[in-house]
């Protein structure tokens, strides 16, 4: 496993890359070079940070966006994005050995520590919704910007119908004792579940469905939302079950689903919590109906797991919706090659940013933060505002005005801090690989349409 704190690595090579990037690649917006002249005389230290689960069970996901964020900082330093000011980067790990992964208490402790440092102007993170619940109040109280690359729980930013469901029970207002300083560059589960429901009912033509979830905040929320929209579309949910992430066999519930005549299975949750295993057990049970999952299922591990059973091509024909495949976007090509160059010395799989869907999100989140800071400096005559609090408030205000073209495409934020860059692609496993079928968008009134 990896230690992002040691990404100092070959500073020279990264710096060289950054200079290269400055010489006219797409990921460096023109505004920075213009600003750099104005802020060359900038005095002081500006710190940005990331907070991800880096160790334990979350080591498969968290380090990627953290590395990507660090890359963004290294490049900004090489480009002198902050002019004469020193730009520092702190990487925080919100996992503890007690939880063997992300720990809300550790996350809150990290944000408290970061907020206490007057030079910290923003944090990229957290990765997990449960950690977000403990970090958002601290960040809000300290006026500190928090940009998540991976939180999809809708109730973190805005009140939607399911927030009051007793199994979700998030009171959004109570999360913000101060200003609304939380943003995210990933679309929330509301849009995804609307699209999932549409896909299940109208594309896969399944009119009865059995729903699994993995008893975690993300999976449970997605499943609940899915069921709501699926029923609204006219489908009928023949049964649903929450199974702990440690579940190793799903045959009992699949037998129930089979006897109830489900025409499809929906899984709300992550591959690590059994998405692929459900598909595997469907093979053993001889169920030839589609499996549909959310973005938590769309990864290579799903295919490996699904094919690990008696049928070695069981994964074929599974569906999952996920954010548009970043690796396929033209805008991300430069980023992934820079990532690969900068982290070539890391052990696999961390030397390849495409191995994890959230890598590019971490990169864009950090770049958006850095550019917001830059625009504050520029707007303030090339110097940081006198008080730390004013500086932070200005950064948040600048973030609201974000209009950024990065690896993910064009990102702006709405009033709740949600990205407007939404849209989900339906993927299908064909010949042992995820292949995009169609990309769908959903409008404000919930109508799903194929996005060009």
């Amino acid at each position, binding site marked *: 496993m990896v230690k992002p704190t040691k990404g*100092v690595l070959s500073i020279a090579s990264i710096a060289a890359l950054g200079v290269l990037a400055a010489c006219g690649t797409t990921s460096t917006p023109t505004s920075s070079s213009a600003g750099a002249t104005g802020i060359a005389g900038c005095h002081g230290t500006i710190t940005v940070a990331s907070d991800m689960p*880096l160790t334990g069970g979350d080591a498969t996901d968290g380090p990627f966006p953290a590395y990507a964020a660090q890359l963004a900082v290294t490049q900004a330093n090489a480009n002198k994005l902050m002019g004469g000011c020193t730009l520092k980067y702190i990487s925080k790990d919100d996992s503890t050995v007690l939880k063997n992964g992300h720990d809300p208490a550790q996350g809150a402790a990290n944000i408290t520590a970061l907020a206490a440092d007057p030079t910290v102007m923003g944090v990229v993170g957290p990765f997990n919704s449960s950690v977000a619940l403990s970090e958002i109040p601290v960040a809000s109280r300290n006026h500190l910007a928090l940009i998540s690359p991976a939180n999809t729980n809708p109730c973190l930013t805005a009140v939607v119908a399911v927030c009051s469901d007793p199994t979700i029970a998030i*009171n959004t207002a109570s999360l913000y004792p101060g200003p609304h300083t939380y943003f995210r560059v990933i679309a929330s589960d509301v849009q995804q579940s609307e699209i999932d429901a549409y896909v299940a009912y109208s594309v896969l033509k399944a009119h009865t469905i059995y729903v699994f979830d993995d008893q975690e905040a993300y999976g449970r929320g997605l499943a609940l939302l899915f069921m709501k929209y699926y029923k609204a579309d006219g489908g009928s949910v023949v049964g649903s079950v929450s199974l702990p992430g440690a579940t190793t066999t799903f045959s009992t519930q699949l037998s129930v689903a089979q006897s109830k005549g489900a025409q499809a299975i929906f899984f709300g949750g992550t591959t690590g919590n059994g998405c692929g295993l459900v598909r595997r057990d469907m093979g053993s049970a001889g169920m030839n109906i589609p499996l549909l999952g959310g973005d938590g299922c769309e990864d290579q591990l799903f295919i490996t797991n699904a094919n690990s059973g008696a049928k070695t091509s069981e994964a074929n024909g599974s569906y999952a919706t996920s954010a548009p495949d970043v690796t396929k976007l033209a805008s991300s090509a430069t980023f992934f090659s820079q990532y690969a160059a900068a982290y070539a010395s890391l052990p696999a799989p961390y030397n390849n940013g495409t191995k994890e869907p959230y890598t590019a999100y971490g990169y864009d989140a950090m770049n958006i933060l850095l550019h917001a800071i830059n625009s504050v400096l520029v707007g303030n005559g090339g110097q940081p505002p006198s008080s730390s609090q004013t500086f932070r408030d200005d950064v948040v205000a600048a973030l609201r005005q974000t209009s950024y073209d990065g690896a993910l495409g064009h990102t702006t934020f709405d009033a709740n801090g949600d990205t407007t860059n939404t849209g989900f692609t339906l993927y299908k496993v064909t010949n042992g690989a995820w292949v995009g079928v169609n990309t769908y968008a959903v409008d404000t009134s919930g109508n799903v349409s194929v996005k060009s």
Partner: protein
Amino acid sequence: MRKRLAAFIRTEPEGGPSSAGTSVFWILASSASGLLIIGWLLPWFVGPYDAGVGYSAQDALVSSPTGIGTILIYILAVAMVILFVSPFAEAFMRFRGRTFGPRADRIRLYLGIAGVVLTGVVWLLYRVLGEEPLFGSLQPGEISDSAIWLTMYGFALAALVYGARPWVIGRQTLAFGTAVLPFGIFLPLMFHQAPDFLLWAAGSLAIYMLLALGLNVVVGFAGLLDLGYAAFFAIGAYACASFASPIHNIHWPLWILIFLGAAIASLFGAILGAPTLRLRGDYLAIVTLGFGEIVPDLATNNVFNLTGGPNGISGIDQPHWGFMDFSESPRWYYWSLLLVSIAVIVLLYNIERSRVGRAWVALREDEVAAAATGINTTTTKLLAFAIGASVSGLAGAFYGSLVTVVTPDDFSFSVSIAVLSIVVLGGIGNIAGVILGAVILTFVIFWALPNMDAWSTTLSSTVHIPALANINFSSYTYIIYGLALILMMLLRPGGLLPSRARRIELESAGESESLAAVQGIA
């Protein structure tokens, strides 16, 4: 060799029922050394915050300034080195079979006092007279202040330990309290940089210490093994969360909730304890483990729509009483927790020495004889469960309020194990030991393990051993943790600071049979 080692380790005169012996002396002496060295190296430790800031003495030596400060710094450095080395030197001498005389103690007392005074003078020179050259490029209110505080404390502690050695050995508990309390109270004032982070760490330390103190009642005092202790922690935390959050729209103040949390948890302690009364030690362990797994399961499944399911309960209130705004800084939590911890420690200490405490020991030693001597084994056991659980409920209430989110994941088996490890590591049945265990283990879990990578990188660049930077400690946390548990039990089953009775007991005797087994009903 072995004999000498044994003679060195044997810390108290034969025969007396004293509990911790001179271990307290050694702990305090080495703490003084530790504080002095930490004071010296603090900027290096704190890493990310250091930018251009260094500790006075170190900087002074490096930048060889002029003026009166320089001389003071050199004197301080000598005093520091002597006092830092002295406990190790003394231990080595003892090991060789010789002792330092009272003169050595006196010298060290004077050194300690001189150290306190001189450090004060240095601080005044710097803060009041602004003698800049002394410190190189210091900025006010930063790490150097903390370093100076720590150094002064280290000197004062050394003065206390060596100046009042007989008193420290004779009244260990009192001496320990006297030495540690001021540190606890002034901690928030000692640190200027990143105080919140430190206080947060101290807060979670206090929470785990409370948990361990509660578990110590059950495991240490009454001898009932509980592997599902996190269940009561969860109950306390969820109780607090339910009554101080938007989930049911009830907003009661924290000071009511800590009592409520304690009461509810103790009620559950008694209820869950009841079916286990007849069970033998390891069966008891397994049943409690079962409870420990059921409670988070219920929370995840949102039983009676009370617990909010897998998301848990979020948006928990943080109190705001007058100028005490708990949400503004963890320092108010820190001081409240300090107060509560002291109260709990005093109460448990009293209980241990009262009728109930004696009854627990009797029960632990020989349940049959205890019953035949008129002790109601049922109520005595239930009382242990209830009191143990109530302390953990209290800790849970604080946890919920501090973190503002409680989720079922927060109360997993590994939490129970961590708390049990604290008790075992520190010394089963000994309150001082449990406190020490909590300090060490929370330091390891929440600070050392997460920062191991950063430290090894720093160290590798300092001592130029690149291999160090490549060791990836964070992935070995499980292994380190497991090894520590095994080695602990094999090498020192009584813990670091064992209560004397429990130590001999753990090293030799078997388990007493239960009354139920004798009566043939279990």
